[in-house]
């Protein structure tokens, strides 16, 4: 008979169990995949560069993941026990012994957990190869990913299964015991308006101050470079958001419905008379869950933004450091061309640009110091004829404007300031120059800042040193062999410039030396002979790919977990709540109206957290807003998040309506 009871309660809640089991088995599958990747031989072979890093990362990641999943299971698993509360109490009234009831809930948990694990492990077996291939693709590694699960992984999985299932079952059994001890039916929730309204108001104030603070953060991030102020602001914003949201939920969600319910002309028309009260009751039950989901969603969004911008920053730094696959100057171009010819590299594009090097002096506001240094000059039309990617991080200029390209001291290069009054040796002073940070031919090809000047200015200006830069793009790499690289190593430095600064620029001069000076003097600059992406690019792609993989996996898992919490919360109505919907139908409320109530409930439950989460993750954008062209992508990411979330809402509405409708036809 106990078997029958367990079987029946499992089938009664099968929709909810299905969602729970799917979410769990997804988590288990991901966990298994992460775990088994750590000691996958083909991964290790493909990523020799990264050594034990992969193993450590997957180990740490899978542990964190397992921990989160476990918390989720404890939390959500409790819903099911709560749902059976009446049933358990009836069993006890009918004289069933307590330990039997507890045993029923214990075994029920074990069965559900076992099913989830079986599905999860199956998922892992099916998708391991796929995920591995995805990882390899993202890492741009051309290897075949072999399926592999080591004995130690299996052993670990089995242990985790037994321990986690045991703990979960015991926890659920304890929850059942507590239900049997308390017995009190549905505690009446006290409204306590005197507490709620002020708390809600305070919450709104907190949220508002957080938003104001965010605006300040925007400003401070751009103006203050090294200070504890932004950090304090971020801490404050986070705290204010978290508590403010809770207080607002606690104070206002029920109050709004309560007020509407008091306005009889609204409340007494149509199903409102019922739906306001119903919704209020449901909201009361769900406040802490809504809050929990809101904060976690905000965190997930912030994490996503953070990772995205972090990746972008690294990517852009990298791209501005190596805009060409191979770059050379006039001293090395011959040797390099010869080497390229030897191994038949397929050149996709080649560029050359003449530059002039001259001495300049100016007062730099950003560094707050007076600078005297050599500077490379390039004409506007030469600059414009280079590939577009060279100009990506620079301000736009027209043919009459000047552009100074410098090294950015921080990641916050969204600097709209300009440089003024730059004196150039034997040439007119440059009154204003716009700023940029991405160097044509790569930052390492230059020893100092660079200036793009109008064509006429360029033609007329004198040069201390004249040089020509060369750049190549290839189809399938430059194919330079290790031996060739070794040979080229002696060309790394093209020449050295020793600057003799005198009282005025006109008297100062640059002395070019072929040999490296014996000791480095302050005013000696090195011109690089060539610059190659080579292995750096490969490593960069691998690291970035791995990073993307983990972040994507995490945020998807988080999204699924949060969505399923909300869905389950909606599905698991108390008995009397779903009976009421049936009653409504009996006294002549149209089905579409009842559907409307359920739709409203769903919309509220899903909309509230996502709106608050979006508002809060605004901070993350504030922290990392680099420029207009990036914000579009972040909007896309957020949009994707909202769409997925909405999908969850839609599914839970459909399932929920189906469940209610089933009861109608009894």
């Amino acid at each position: 008979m106990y078997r029958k009871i367990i079987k029946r309660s499992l089938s009664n809640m099968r929709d909810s169990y299905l969602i729970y089991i799917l979410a769990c088995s997804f988590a288990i599958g991901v966990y298994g995949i992460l775990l088994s990747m750590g000691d996958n031989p083909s991964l290790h072979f493909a990523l020799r560069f990264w050594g034990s890093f992969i193993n450590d990362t997957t180990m740490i990641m899978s542990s964190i993941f397992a921990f989160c999943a476990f918390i989720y299971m404890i939390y959500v698993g409790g819903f099911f026990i709560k749902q059976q509360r009446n049933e358990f109490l009836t069993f006890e009234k009918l004289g069933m012994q307590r330990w039997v009831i507890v045993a029923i809930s214990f075994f029920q948990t074990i069965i559900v957990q076992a099913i989830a694990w079986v599905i999860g492990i199956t998922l892992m077996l099916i998708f391991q190869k796929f995920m591995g291939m995805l990882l390899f693709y993202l890492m741009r590694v051309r290897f075949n990913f072999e399926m592999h699960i080591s004995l130690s992984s299996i052993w670990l999985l089995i242990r985790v299964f037994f321990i986690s299932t045991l703990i979960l079952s015991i926890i659920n059994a304890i929850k059942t015991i507590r239900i049997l001890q308390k017995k009190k039916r549905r505690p009446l929730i006290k409204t306590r308006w005197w507490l709620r309204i002020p708390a809600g108001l305070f919450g709104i104030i907190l949220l508002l101050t957080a938003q104001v603070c965010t605006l300040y953060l925007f400003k401070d991030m751009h103006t203050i470079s090294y200070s504890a102020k932004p950090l304090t602001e971020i801490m404050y914003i986070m705290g204010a958001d978290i508590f403010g949201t809770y207080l607002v939920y606690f104070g206002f969600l029920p109050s709004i419905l309560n007020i509407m319910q008091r306005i009889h002309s609204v409340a007494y028309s149509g199903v409102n008379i019922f739906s306001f009260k119903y919704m209020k009751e449901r909201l009361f039950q769900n406040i802490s869950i809504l809050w929990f989901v809101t904060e976690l969603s905000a965190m997930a969004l912030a994490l996503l933004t953070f990772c995205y911008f972090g990746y972008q920053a690294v990517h852009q730094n990298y791209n501005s450091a190596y805009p060409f696959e191979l770059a050379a100057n006039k001293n090395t171009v011959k040797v390099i061309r010869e080497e390229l010819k030897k191994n038949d590299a397929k050149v996709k594009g080649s560029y050359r640009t003449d530059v002039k090097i001259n001495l300049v002096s100016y007062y730099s506001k950003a560094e707050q110091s007076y600078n005297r240094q050599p500077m490379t000059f390039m004409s506007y039309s030469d600059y414009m004829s280079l590939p577009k990617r060279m100009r990506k991080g620079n301000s736009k200029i027209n043919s009459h404007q000047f552009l100074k390209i410098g090294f950015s001291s921080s990641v916050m290069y969204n600097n709209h300031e300009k440089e003024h009054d730059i004196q150039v040796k034997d040439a007119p002073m440059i009154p204003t120059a716009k700023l940029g940070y991405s160097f044509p031919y790569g930052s390492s090809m230059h020893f100092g800042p660079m200036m793009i000047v109008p064509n006429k200015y360029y033609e007329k200006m004198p040069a201390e040193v004249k040089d020509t830069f060369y750049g190549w793009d290839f189809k399938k790499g430059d194919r330079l062999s290790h031996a060739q690289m070794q040979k080229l190593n002696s060309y790394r430095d093209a020449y050295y410039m020793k600057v003799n600064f005198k009282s005025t620029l006109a008297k100062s001069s640059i002395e070019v030396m072929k040999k490296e000076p014996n000791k480095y003097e302050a005013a000696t600059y090195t011109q690089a002979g060539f610059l190659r992406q080579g292995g750096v690019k490969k490593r960069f792609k691998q690291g970035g790919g791995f990073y993307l993989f983990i972040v994507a996996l995490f945020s998807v898992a988080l999204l699924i977990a949060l969505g399923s919490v909300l869905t389950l919360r909606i599905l698991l109505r108390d008995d009397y709540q779903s009976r009421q919907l049936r009653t409504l139908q009996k006294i002549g409320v149209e089905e579409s109206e009842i559907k409307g109530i359920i739709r409203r409930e769903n919309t509220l439950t899903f909309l509230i957290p996502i709106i608050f989460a979006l508002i809060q993750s605004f901070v993350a954008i504030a922290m990392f807003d680099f420029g207009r062209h990036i914000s579009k992508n972040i909007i896309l990411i957020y949009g994707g998040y909202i769409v997925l979330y909405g999908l969850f809402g839609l599914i839970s509405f459909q399932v929920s309506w189906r469940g209610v409708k089933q009861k109608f036809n009894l």
Partner: protein
Amino acid sequence: MQIAVKNISKDFGKKRNAVHAIKDISLEVDHGEFLGIMGPSGAGKTTLLNMISTNQRPDHGQIIIDGLDLTQFHDRDQAKYRRNKMGFIYQSFELLDSLNVKENVILPLALNRSNKKLIEERFNHMMQLLNIEKLSDRSVDELSLGQRQIVAAARALINNPEILFADEPTGSLDSKSATILLNYMQLINQKEKTTIIMATHDAFTASYCSRVVFIKDGVVFSEVVNPGNRDKFFEQIINMQRTIGGGDYFNVSQNY
């Protein structure tokens, strides 16, 4: 003739353990009639009422009210029809736990978006009439069974339905409340020509009807018409109950 039920039947469950709740029932109810339906437990009274009131669809047969074949209606139109013309007192009350007594009672009017003044007026009238003014702000959870039943009756009657369906309306009531309710039903039946169909076990309750149909095992067994004298009618009903047999099923009136 307002309601015509033609050869309806209804089964529950699947092949093996199917229950033929209603086998083949035909009935005619005139406008303004007070019809009683009696029969032992499980005879199919509730099922019959549910089908006439379009809460359930019959497997076969037709239900024609005011010349309209309701079985042909779409669910949505049925719900509309039900809401506008019919009132229900359910055997299991079907009150909404979330709402208090007042809100439960005015629900049908609110659903029809009646104006607030009318709602208040009708509400006070009903509460006074059924002598339950004191309950109006209580929560349904706290009511006794009898109190719930009378509240359910108030809800059914508040919008002056054309047809009233009452399933065991006095099952949980003490004799005084039962008499008040039955008298009121008789009043609206006579004054406002409300058609009433009432299912009951109770011979005393049934004696308020103008005609009583007996069903057993899903078919009409016989019927008794009120001769104009309640005591005589009551006796006839008791006799018929004995004839149907299984007297142990019946709670012969506690009011007698």
